[in-house]
């Protein structure tokens, strides 16, 4: 109890301490002492236990690839005939999709695409399970992984040990193709894609490998893991790939970062930190870094292998990758049940090390402890100081317990209860107003066409213009509301602040359960502001407003401009993939507006006093 009192008396220092402790903890996570070596949980995978068959050659891969350099229409026909000649069961699926919801609001300008998929039916089982090898076809340049896939398919046809159907899936238009195919495969319609139903099915999909090769040879392979909304594939799958790369002496990277040569040095530490931060950056956008994100949405463990070529370094030919792919398929073929062991929540500081959820969650907890403690201290401060006084008084007359009791009793109950106007109803009203403003921001893009015809702007400009307008309108409304129509008493302002602190802590905490990276990054800049904003006068007030403006949504978007355009974020929200737009407008914006409200009501508190 005494400890608690002491803690609450120095709450500001404690808040700074916990915040810094959280940040330092997070940085320390990149030290080799704090993260562990990746290991396999699923022993059934047993990677590298089998020898690869070497059935195909470099020439064969190159020969296949030569077909796919020309016109798309023609290559698709070639593809079908090639797959049929190999002996697969080939089908194609036509689909049309709507890409941009801002710039084509009225007339549906649908883009068309074709998916080609071939089943390599398992010779030894009923075909209840399958593995997908997805090769996205680009329009501007060839994907050389096509050759690898075809060569692998040809080799697999001659082998008898496959227990799972292997699906070779060639998709167009990036993730739209993959989504169209997966939607049709699982029978879930989506409103922005119109796709033909599939003419044939394989078993339930256990895992998927996406291959992207933009050159005829490669220096190293980059693993892409990040799915939508912070989803990650089971760590066993990425372990499997990394282990096989190592076995075949191929360089592998995560987010284009390699495992440091000497992990114990400062350089190694920096490299770990950089890799972790890069991964968190990608995760916090809520966007997928490749086609695997769409598979992950259907709970199919998937990774993307991207071949990177650099001119300075020696290159490997595609045959090496062919062996890797074969190895991965062999391992997945051994799988007896769905991926369920190992980790789903992790961060990778390098290809061979991981930070588990148990290690990184506490640092977020420490950071969020600051607003919680602050709120708690504000709520109980009056009680604590009261009981302090009585304790001091009673120390003198400890002999007479009755007196003490009476003292305490009188302190608590005898005095005429003069309830200060707590104004909880106004606090609730204020919070509801802020959330309504958030909802308006969330719905505002649907007025883009009206807006653009009114001001004769392009759709994109008017969309951004609209968002900014709603922002400013809410801000001005808040300012006017607190100055002219409504004022808090001191007690009310305190309660509003407590509510905002708790709201921020809970909201960020919940976000971070779903998407740790987003939650942590938001908490890093939000917590200092939220904890120390209060109703003040003079230059401090303007400093607070400035700090709020710095963390406002448009400016945050401005700092991270190169990551994703706001139009794209909105489109991804409408296609129900990334939740970044709702999170920003429905959670972050009301929170921010409340803080603005706190800075606004200061003048009136003084008058009320």
């Amino acid at each position, binding site marked *: 109890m005494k400890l608690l009192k002491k803690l609450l008396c120095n709450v500001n220092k404690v808040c700074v301490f916990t915040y810094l402790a959280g940040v330092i903890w997070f940085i320390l996570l990149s030290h080799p002492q704090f993260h562990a070596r990746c290991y396999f949980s699923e022993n059934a995978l047993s990677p590298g236990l089998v020898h690869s068959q070497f059935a195909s050659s470099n020439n064969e891969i190159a020969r296949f690839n030569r077909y796919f350099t020309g016109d798309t229409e023609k290559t698709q026909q070639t593809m079908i005939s090639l797959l049929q000649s190999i002996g697969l069961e080939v089908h194609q699926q036509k689909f049309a999709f709507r890409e941009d919801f801002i710039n084509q609001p009225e007339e549906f300008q649908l883009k068309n695409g074709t998916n080609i998929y071939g089943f390599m039916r398992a010779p030894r089982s009923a075909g209840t399970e399958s593995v997908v090898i997805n090769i996205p076809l680009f329009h501007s340049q060839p994907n050389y992984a096509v050759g690898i896939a075809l060569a692998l398919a040809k080799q697999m046809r001659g082998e008898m040990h496959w227990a799972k159907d292997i699906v070779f899936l060639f998709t167009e238009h990036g993730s739209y193709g993959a989504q169209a195919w997966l939607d049709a495969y699982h029978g879930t319609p989506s409103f922005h894609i119109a796709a033909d139903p599939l003419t044939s099915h394989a078993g339930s999909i256990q895992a998927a490998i996406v291959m992207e090769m933009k050159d005829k040879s490669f220096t190293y392979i980059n693993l892409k893991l990040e799915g939508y*909304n912070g*989803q*990650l594939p089971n760590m066993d799958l990425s372990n499997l790939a990394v282990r096989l790369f190592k076995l075949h002496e191929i360089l592998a990277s995560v987010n284009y970062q390699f495992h440091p040569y000497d992990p114990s040095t400062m350089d190694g530490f920096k490299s770990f930190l950089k890799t972790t931060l890069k991964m968190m950056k990608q995760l916090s956008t809520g966007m997928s870094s490749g086609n695997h994100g769409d598979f992950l949405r259907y*709970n199919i463990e998937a990774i993307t292998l991207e071949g990177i070529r650099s001119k300075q370094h020696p290159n490997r030919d595609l045959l090496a990758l062919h062996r890797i792919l074969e190895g991965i398929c062999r391992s997945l073929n051994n799988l007896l049940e769905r991926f369920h062991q190992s980790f*789903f*929540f992790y961060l990778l500081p390098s290809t061979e090390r991981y930070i588990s959820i148990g290690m990184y969650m506490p640092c977020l907890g420490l950071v969020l402890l600051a607003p919680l403690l602050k709120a*708690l201290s504000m*709520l*109980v401060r009056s009680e604590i100081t009261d009981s302090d006084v009585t304790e001091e008084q009673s120390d003198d007359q400890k002999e007479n*317990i*009755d007196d003490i*009791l*009476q003292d*305490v*009793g*009188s302190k*608590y*109950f*005898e*005095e*005429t*209860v003069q*309830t200060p106007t707590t104004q909880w109803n106004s606090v609730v009203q204020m919070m509801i107003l802020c959330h309504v403003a958030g909802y308006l921001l969330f719905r505002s893009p649907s007025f883009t066409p009206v807006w653009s015809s009114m001001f004769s702007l392009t759709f994109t400009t008017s969309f951004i213009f609209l968002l900014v307008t709603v922002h400013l309108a809410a801000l001005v409304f808040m300012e006017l509301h607190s100055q002219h129509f409504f004022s808090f008493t001191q007690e009310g302002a305190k309660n509003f602040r407590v509510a905002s602190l*708790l709201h921020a802590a*809970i909201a960020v*905490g*919940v976000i971070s*359960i*779903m998407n740790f990276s987003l939650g942590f990054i938001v908490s890093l800049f939000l917590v200092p502001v939220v904890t120390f904003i209060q109703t003040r006068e003079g230059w401090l007030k303007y400093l607070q407003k400035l700090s709020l403006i710095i963390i406002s949504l448009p400016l945050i978007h401005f700092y991270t401009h190169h990551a994703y355009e706001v139009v794209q974020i909105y489109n991804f929200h409408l296609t129900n993939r990334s939740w970044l737009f709702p999170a920003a407008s429905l959670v972050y914006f009301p929170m921010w507006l409340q803080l603005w409200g706190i800075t606004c009501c200061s003048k009136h508190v003084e008058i009320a006093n």
Partner: protein
Amino acid sequence: MGKQRIKNYVNASLSDVIPIFNCDYARADNDKVSLYKDQESLSDPPSGLNFISNPAGFDSNNSKFKLEISPLTLFEKSLKDVCQTTNTISDEFTEAEQVQCRDVYTLPSTSYVEPDILYLLISVQNKHSAVEMLLYISLAVLLRAWLFAAPEFVSWLSSLPEVSTPLSSWHRVVEGISVLKQGGSIHEGDSYHGSTLLLIFMSRLQEYSPLLLYLMFATCDIVTSLALLRFAEKFIRNELIDIYKPDNDISSQSKSIKLNESGMKDIPLLISLLYLFNPFTIATCVSKCTLIFSNMFLALFLNASLSGSVFSTTLFLALATYESLYPIVLLFAAALCYYKYQKTSWTIYTCMLLTTLCFLMWLSLLFVIAYLHDESPESIVSHYSFILRVPDQTPNVGVFWYFFTEVFDHFQSFFLCVFQLNVIVFSIPMSIKLRSHPVCLSFILIGIVAALKSYPSLGDAGLWLSILPLWSHTFKYLRMAIVTSIMLITTAIVCPVMWNLWIGARSANANFFFASSLAYTTAQVLILTDVLLAYLKWHYHLREGVCPKLETSNEKAMIRLLN
């Protein structure tokens, strides 16, 4: 407003005042009245009385002037006198107002009326004028209509395990209706597990017009909130009468913690608004969860239990029991309520017997009607066996499903008994401890059932959380209000997130969801115990005074514990 005037002012002459305050004589100055006793001015004039001076300078003893009554302080003195004063209410009042006063005079259980109660009654009726309430109700209806019109949101909401349980989800009702139309037996398959009468009622309603269904659900919420409003008004009035009764056992030292009407006058409206705009309630209503009906019956039961009418009380209790079985634990509370608020003067045993008999009569009547519609005992048995044996372990916010998916089959029946007893057994000690506070007893039992029943959902908690402000006068005795309320809010938000991680993203597992739902249940139980303890403590202080005289050592220890 004329009515406002009644509650604040009473016309009296100085000679009326003198006996009330035990003073020798009173003198009227320009703007105030001073009282004198033994030649000394009472330095501390009674704070409850403010004399409003008569503008045309009055003759001290004869002319009447207005007395502003703030009721709390009056009753230490001779009440009869006050009432006489009240009786001399001047002829200024309009007829309607006098009628209102006369109504007040016919209040049960008191031969006279304290101006206090008069004040409260009229203020309650004034405050929540019909227009204001109508505004709130239409707002609530609009909100629900708006949400009903967003099918995606509704389907997402209905898919949440916190909102719809196998017992109450709308999908099951739809299936049940189609089975009914095909002419099959409702309870044969695993589609519908609710009560027979409800399904028949729903199917009739749907045949009529699907729009009526939406209207039905919105109406249920409104009826519930109005019932809660009436219930809270009545309860507060009764409590005030109890506390300010002259011959009660309330300590004179407990003045500061007594209920006062100014603190309580907004409570009924707050309660009904809390129910109307509670996210839990809205979610239940919008997802068309049939739980809304048992909530309505419970609210009507609470309202009826204060009226002292055994027939209506047991009717609503029987309806609630027929719907969801667990309200049967409220039977004893109903009897106690009847005993406390009866208009006749029967003994407690007679009351209990009467209540039980009436309850059984209504319940058997319901069974008979259900039997006539379905013509098989299945219609009654399978509904209750589904509640008691918990065969469906679809996740929900309760404690049953996780345990019974884990436990070995041969222990299942044993643990079923343990878990079900856990819900019911509290009713016995609670009924003994709270026998003189039947309303508090009903509240606690409703809360316990909501937290621990076999298929709980958010709507269950919504009901008792809305009634919570009824105990606001005891809230200063709460020990961990902040922690528990934050815990409840957080877990209520985290539950759907964990559900999404488990079922949607498949990256988490059942433990995540169960942990948050367990914390949710724990928060409910903690709040309930906290409120109960606070209420008991408050009542203890009310009886013994806030700083009671300590004589034996045992008592000291008790006081220390209480503090």
